[in-house]
């Protein structure tokens, strides 16, 4: 049956989409799992993968975290890939390092699976763009979008946002990278493994037997373990984290999450290695445990600095940093609230500037109004000019603002 026939068969398949979303959530749970690794299953799957590469099963070495694994493999050349050059000559390919061959095998598999779930051809005048964010999957299906497109957004993209972009990237960021060292992600491969698995299980794709078997190996790994590193005869396997704290991503339409915890690490491994994340922003531990003006001023990363300031509050920051008030003005369109402009000395944030403290035009869910700071150029002396500058209008024009929400 062709992909197009599948699309027709399930053009009214709301049930399929609902089923796909439930399966997606199972995969998300594997991606976020904090249970101990199922070692036997993971070792068995890796052994099979080695066998497909023509290698004998490796000796396994389990460590508590990716950070510990990195220490174990950092200086071992067997875990490194070869030089980055393209070759399709089979002899060269056979002779290339094991991590390269493994990467090529995985990438080729993903390519073939991707072709098997390709969207059917639709006329160029029909709706071809991505789903507008927030479109319910059922709605998209009703609008005539092919089921493959709906699944790509509702399952593939959603899992990628949660597992790869939110969790895997944060852990990767905190353990650091080593040039040439190749890592496989176990549970954090759930986004692509899960997408192709779900497509097949709801009948939106059919894979060749060999591809389906290979996918099953990667799926077993994603369900069983954390990250791993492969060398000839030796494989270093990392346990899954023992704690992962998340919150719903803003306007999550398909169950997307991001990491967040403001009273400790968002990700913790059994050996005590941690990742601190505030509303999706990876931050150094001090931002969560002890933000101070000195540390904020020594911090080069703007996002980290902003997260740290928000931890202590913009008002408290201005006070503790001893920023000098340049002027205040009533905020037009936001009755009862004022704009305050402060001077930020060159030494504080690297170059001279000014900070405009404003109050949000809408109340927060807790009934309060959020204060927040905006950087503005150092030459602005009038709070109205500064507020106007942020929108590209003059202070005189900004003074005519009728309403702010």
């Amino acid at each position, binding site marked *: 049956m062709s992909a197009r026939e599948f699309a027709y068969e399930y053009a009214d398949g709301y049930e399929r989409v609902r089923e796909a979303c439930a399966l997606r959530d199972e995969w998300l749970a594997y991606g976020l799992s904090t249970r101990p690794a199922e070692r036997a299953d993971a070792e068995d799957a890796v052994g099979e993968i080695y066998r497909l590469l023509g290698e004998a099963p490796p000796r396994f070495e389990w460590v508590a975290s990716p950070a510990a694994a990195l220490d174990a493999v950092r200086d071992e050349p067997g875990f490194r890939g070869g030089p980055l050059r393209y070759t399709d000559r089979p002899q060269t390919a056979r002779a290339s390092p094991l991590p390269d061959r493994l990467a090529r095998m995985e990438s080729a598999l993903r390519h073939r699976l991707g072709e098997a779930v390709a969207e059917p051809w639709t006329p160029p005048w029909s709706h071809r763009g991505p789903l*507008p964010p*927030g479109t319910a999957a059922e709605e998209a299906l009703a609008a005539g979008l092919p089921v493959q497109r709906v699944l790509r957004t509702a399952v593939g993209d959603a899992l990628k946002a949660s597992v790869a972009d939110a969790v895997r990237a944060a852990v990767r960021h905190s353990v650091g990278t080593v040039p040439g060292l190749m890592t496989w992600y176990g549970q954090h491969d759930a986004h692509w493994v899960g997408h192709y698995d779900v497509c097949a299980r709801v009948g939106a794709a059919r894979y060749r037997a060999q591809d389906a078997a290979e996918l099953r190996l990667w799926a077993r790994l994603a369900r069983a373990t954390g990250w791993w590193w492969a060398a000839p005869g030796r494989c270093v396997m990392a346990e899954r984290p023992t704690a992962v704290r998340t919150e719903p991503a803003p*306007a999550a339409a398909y169950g997307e999450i991001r990491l967040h915890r403001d009273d400790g690490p968002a990700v913790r491994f059994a050996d005590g290695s941690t990742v601190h994340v505030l509303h999706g922003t990876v931050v150094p531990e001090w931002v969560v445990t002890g933000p101070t003006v000195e540390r904020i001023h020594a911090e080069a990363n703007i996002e980290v600095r902003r997260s740290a300031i928000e931890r202590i509050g913009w008002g408290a920051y201005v006070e503790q940093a001893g920023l000098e008030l340049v002027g205040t003005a009533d905020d037009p*369109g936001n009755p009862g609230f004022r704009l305050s402009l402060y001077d930020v000395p060159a030494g504080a944030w690297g170059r001279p500037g000014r900070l405009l403290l404003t109050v949000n035009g809408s*109340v927060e869910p807790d009934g309060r109004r959020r204060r927040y700071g905006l950087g503005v150029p150092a030459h602005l002396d009038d709070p109205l000019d500064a507020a106007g500058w*942020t*929108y*590209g209008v003059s202070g005189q024009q900004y003074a005519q603002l009728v309403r702010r*929400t």
Partner: protein
Amino acid sequence: MRMVTLGELTERTGLDVLEHLAREVAVPVVDGMQAQGDLLLVPMGMLGHVGLGRSWSPHPRWQDVPPEGIELLRSTAGGNPHTLVADPQQCRWTDDVTDPTGLAIGALEATAIAYLIHPEHGATGIAPGRYLVRRQRERALGAPPGRLRSQLFRGGNQFVCD
């Protein structure tokens, strides 16, 4: 003319706002400059040096605001959208605008009241007229030298995302 309430508007458009916003309050209609978080609506008449269309084609391509509305802006993290909604054939939108500040995302022309809805900021009414819609920027204070690209292209400024 009776003003609609936030509750009626969310029912009519199917767009959601957060629970804590008062739904029974009438949505004010504004004919001057107004801000909804990181977006500013400026009556075209207030601005010089801003034109509809581009240098190579002075006629902007308008699109009618469809029943489900148009998302004018959504923050990079996939966050909350600002959605423009209007009755059929009463409002059109174009992103063919020339704005020397680089902050404009487009312009709207309403012949009846249109609305801008945001989950956190609620709704606001837009009186008939032509408006430029701009984003908000801030100076990235003390951007480290490595961020050369942003400094070259935007003078070290970045968009505000609320």
